[in-house]
């Protein structure tokens, strides 16, 4: 019986196919191709978003451009979402993930997280002031929008038991929030903070009412096989350099994000060393 099941499953998996990325030196491969393919967000203002001409721009996009410049190749950007970025990386469809990816222990089993981490955020909600939320417990039983694949969905879902409505991508969730389909949008406090600080009248009646929870570092992702290979090392060096030179702080200012304590601290630390 077990053998039968194993046979059927084996056959199915064989049909589906197993595709691993070849352990070839990634830098050489990128240079040979003449292009580096980076998975970025196109719905996460101001880290990576679309301008009206359809071009992807933002703070993370500039980091991707830095990497391409350093390697002397062209930059190709592929929009990814939380639910597919690690798959794409491990399939080899992209060489690098710079897409607001939280650095968790679970994920470290699947992708290589580049240190030092280039950013840090925590969990909060964006809600209309009229919702009158005071504490996390207020979310219980209410409709709260979220995005597929975000690491905090599970934790918040179990801890505070909101009625989570999880969408494939951020714009769907924002549309739903603005349309009044949910009481709040569960998200990263950095993004919420910068959205509200932007002074955009469309967010005038919204607030970030709760105390941020569950601080989380963001990391640039490479394939696990690349982490200790030249490509991973190069990314680490660049990451140190971004902190040390103040590049990250400057970018933060340029894109109108509230200066984060994490970046200030890291800048001090790396300059000191």
């Amino acid at each position, binding site marked *: 019986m077990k053998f039968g099941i194993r046979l059927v*499953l084996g056959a199915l998996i064989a049909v*589906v196919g197993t595709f691993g990325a070849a352990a070839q030196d990634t830098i050489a491969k990128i240079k040979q191709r003449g292009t580096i393919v980076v998975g970025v967000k196109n719905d996460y203002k101001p880290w990576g978003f679309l301008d009206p001409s359809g071009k992807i721009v933002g703070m993370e996009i500039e980091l991707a451009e830095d990497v391409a410049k350093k390697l002397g190749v062209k930059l190709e950007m592929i929009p990814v979402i939380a639910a597919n970025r690690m*798959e794409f990386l491990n399939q080899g469809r992209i060489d690098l993930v710079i897409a607001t990816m939280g650095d968790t222990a679970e994920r470290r089993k699947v992708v290589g997280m580049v240190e030092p981490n280039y950013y840090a955020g925590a969990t909060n909600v964006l809600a209309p002031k009229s919702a009158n939320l005071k504490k996390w417990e207020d979310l219980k039983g*209410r*409709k709260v929008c979220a995005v597929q694949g975000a690491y905090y969905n599970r934790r918040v879902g179990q801890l505070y038991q909101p009625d989570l*409505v999880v969408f494939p991508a951020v714009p769907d969730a924002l549309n739903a929030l*603005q*349309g*009044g*389909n949910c009481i709040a949008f569960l998200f990263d406090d950095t993004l919420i903070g910068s959205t509200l600080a932007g002074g955009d009248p469309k967010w005038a009646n919204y607030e970030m009412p709760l105390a941020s929870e569950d601080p989380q570092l963001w990391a640039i992702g490479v394939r696990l096989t690349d982490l200790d290979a030249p490509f991973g090392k190069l990314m680490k060096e660049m990451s140190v350099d971004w902190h040390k030179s103040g590049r990250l702080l400057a970018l933060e200012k340029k894109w109108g994000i509230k200066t984060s304590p994490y970046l200030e601290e890291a800048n001090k630390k790396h300059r000191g060393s």
Partner: protein
Amino acid sequence: MDGTADFFRWLAEAHRIDVSIAYDPLDRKRFLIGLWTTIWLSGVCIGSSILVGLIGAWLHGARSAAARGAVQVFVQFFRNTPPLVQLAFFYFAVSAALPPVTDRFGASVPLIDNVGWAIVSFSLFAGAFNVEIFRSGIEAVPRATVEAAESLGYTRLAAYRHVVLPLAFRVCLPALGNNLVNLVKTTTLAYAIGVPELLYAASQVWSEVFNVREMMVVLLLTYVALVAVLVHGLRRWERAMRIPGYSA
């Protein structure tokens, strides 16, 4: 049960074939909730889309040109636009335009939630096809039959209910079956507005356990099995409703 769970745990560890819904209680629960949601969502939509079809076909036979025209606009519009955009149109746009209601927390919330809009949207979409299917079935009933019924003292409504519909329904069944199978497949679109159906459940599992391959196989097999059950049921129904001595 334990033996099966152990087997799949072994499979995950020894062969990296991670069917986590077979041994992880949380994942299994999520998957079963998704399966159940897909089943009842399909059931509700099948019922209401047939109702939409019947009403539409009835209005189409009405004397009022305005009623007939309205049915035509409805049918053609819903048949010739993407169901995913229809769903977004209802859930995001129509919902925002409707007056909100107050929930038990005292906050104003939309009249209809995502599950509700999925039902409305899919019922209208499949219903538009059903209108055409029923109409062609009704048209296939000879005039003489209706006249015969009327000469026996049936009113128009009674003739429609007791004579025309039963006959037309038998003619429609194959096409109707096709459409209902499609309706079940269309329920996957509810994923896009966060309805916790089967695809949603599977994607939740694979974005946490990173077992896309395995979940994809499970998902495909589950849907093919669901559709097979429906097709089988429809075929039995068709056979049960057959008029003796009269067949295609």
